[in-house]
């Protein structure tokens, strides 16, 4: 190493050019593929082949059971994008869902994380409690909340009545105007703790000197949050923005377990529609086309983030 640094780089390259070329070949062709091979093999078998078959199926009239199918080109896509009115409605619900999840859990998590960051004792207990909902099985979470939201005897209605607050003895999950948002509330109950844990850990990684400096400059709480905390946790916030946006298009289990898209399609999203098409209506080919469209949305979101980064955003 010491020898190398004393020489001019050009002479090294001249001397070793032949060897470097061979090394280059090794480095640029052989070794990368050797490193990727184990994963690639697994991936091809358990992800790629089934996925490609899924794309192929989206261009057939596959019913979901009978493997003998007819190739129908892009007919499914044509029907989906230009004829199926319910698809637009579901997509709209997905977008509402996304707007909810890009705001409510983020605000909650940021607020609680910045509060908890200041607690010195017992923080671990709080964190663990707030994190439990995230690891509970969705069947359990949805069952609990369906009971709590019972308009007559559920705890929400009962405590509102006890406190004299009106307007809570309502079947939130049974009304077309409140069903989707109520499910979003329940899903968020389970989800936001995860965000909070991430933000909290990120906040604690911010060097305390930065806060001290802000204090010396006379910054108040809000300014401190705005100019020290937020920039410090920005990468994880933006990363989670992207993930949540993608997940919003895949939203399925909470909606399925609570309303199955009802009442009257009020909480229908693409994934619930897809499930019905695939497994109840025997239109698996059509459902596969819906799946491909969702993937394209997901890809689109990733592209937006990649482009923002290329433009110099610090994501």
């Amino acid at each position, binding site marked *: 190493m010491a020898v190398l640094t004393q020489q001019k780089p050009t002479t090294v390259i001249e001397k070793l050019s032949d060897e470097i070329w061979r090394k280059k070949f090794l480095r640029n062709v052989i070794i990368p593929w050797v490193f990727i091979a184990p994963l690639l093999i697994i991936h091809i078998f358990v992800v790629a082949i089934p996925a490609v078959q899924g794309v192929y199926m989206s261009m057939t009239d596959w*019913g*979901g*059971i*009978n*493997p*003998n199918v007819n190739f129908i080109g892009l007919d499914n896509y044509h029907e989906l994008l230009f004829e199926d009115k319910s698809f637009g409605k579901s997509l709209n619900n997905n977008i509402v869902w996304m707007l909810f999840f890009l705001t409510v859990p983020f605000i909650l998590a940021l607020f609680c994380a910045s509060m908890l960051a200041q607690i010195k004792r017992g923080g671990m207990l709080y964190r663990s409690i707030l994190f439990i909902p995230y690891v509970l099985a969705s069947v359990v979470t949805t069952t609990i909340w*369906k009971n709590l*939201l*019972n*308009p007559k005897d559920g705890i929400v209605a009962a405590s509102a009545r006890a406190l004299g607050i009106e307007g809570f003895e*309502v*079947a939130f*999950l*049974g*009304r*077309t105007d409140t*069903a989707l948002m109520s499910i979003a509330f329940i899903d968020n109950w389970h989800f936001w703790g995860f965000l909070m844990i991430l933000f909290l850990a990120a906040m604690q990684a911010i060097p305390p000197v930065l806060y001290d400096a802000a204090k010396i400059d006379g910054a108040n709480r809000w300014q401190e949050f705005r100019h020290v905390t937020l920039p410090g946790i920005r990468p994880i916030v933006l990363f989670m923005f992207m993930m949540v946006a993608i997940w919003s298009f895949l939203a399925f289990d909470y909606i399925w377990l609570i*309303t*199955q*898209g*009802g*009442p*009257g*399609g*009020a909480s229908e999203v693409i994934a619930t529609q897809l499930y*019905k098409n695939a*497994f*109840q*209506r*025997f*239109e698996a080919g059509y459902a596969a086309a819906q799946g491909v469209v969702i993937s394209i949305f997901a890809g689109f979101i990733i592209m937006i983030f990649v482009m923002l980064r290329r433009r110099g955003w610090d994501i």
Partner: protein
Amino acid sequence: MKHLKILALLAILLFAISAAGAQDVTTVTLWFAEGSTLDCWGPIMLEFNDIDPAVQLEIVPQADTWNATRTAVVGGGGPDIVRTPGPSFVYEMAQAGLILPMDTFAESMGWSDFFFDWALDLGLVDGQLYSLSDELETLVMYYNVDVFEANGWTPPETMDELNALGEEVAAAGYTVFSHGNASWRPSNEWFVGEYMTQIAGPHNVYKALTGQIPWTDESMVEAMEVLDAHMQAGWYGGGIDLYFTNEGPTRRAMLADGTAAMNIEGSWAIRDLSTYHAESGQDWNWVSVPSKTGADHFTIGMGNTSSINANSAHPEAAAQFLTWYFSPETQGKMLTNCLKGPAPVSISEEVMGELDPRIAKVYADLSDASANDRYGYTTWTFWPPKSDVYIYEEVERVWTGEITVEEYLEGLNELFAEELEAGDIPPIPLR
């Protein structure tokens, strides 16, 4: 000749012994959801294993049973006995060659001796027998006897009487029908099918199912208008939003504790009624669902079907199990011990006599109705799959005021016509 017979017998015996000696046990597998049902059915089903040590049944508890079965069978695996939720699933599987035609077994094992004729026909796909129907069901109207007596009401027989009584019940502060679809969204279809049968009449439904009249027929519009009016009046569950949120147990409790007066539901509900009402101490009984004409119409439905997996290594043994399982003796035992909806087989009077008379009467009246042209059709057994999903999904839009009854039926008519043309219709018994 006699010698020959003895020789043959000996040969069989020898073969049997050598088979047993070689531990050549054939295992028939069956997937079943674990829970209270299996707790009761399981031990009875396993009695099969006492008959022939060489053919043994293995019940594999499997959550999410139908999804798991479908994927496994399509993927070339799965249990020997394939249970599906209904004839339209059988149709798809048979078309794909995933299950076996069972005509030879039916003949050699004498299935037509104990199955009702129309019941075996339900399992036909392109003229071959692919499935056996299980869990015969029909819809009736249950009512809380204590509530009725306290108010001096008598159970209605006609739709007009029901309309009048319903208003009285609601005015007295009761919920008319204890209902809610939060635990099982497709329960919507029970009422669509029932109102069509009782108001438009089973013959019109038959005509519509066979393409002779459209679903937009006046009689169908009337039926759906009446159902919508009942929904809008809050008769179901106490209000539309409550109907969408009431869970199964709530629905049962409402009838049992006298919050609600009546309940239109399938014969499967009997299992729960006996426990819930024993707890509340209030009595229940049932009448046939009121019809426009006053005639007793009973719709026929099937809860399950059984077929043999095409991948099965020993279909013969699977057929042996099916023969035993569907025999009137086994079915009778499961009916009396577990209140299981019986397969459509002729169960002896004696067995029926052991039952609660209210329960025995459901099956007696149903079989009487089917013999006397008073039977109707349940949507999940006789409608093609897309139309069936449409029926219970889209009707919610009618009830929430998004579309009209006419628009709903037009949509159904269009979809049904497509499926009829494609030939995806389950076999409809001729009348």
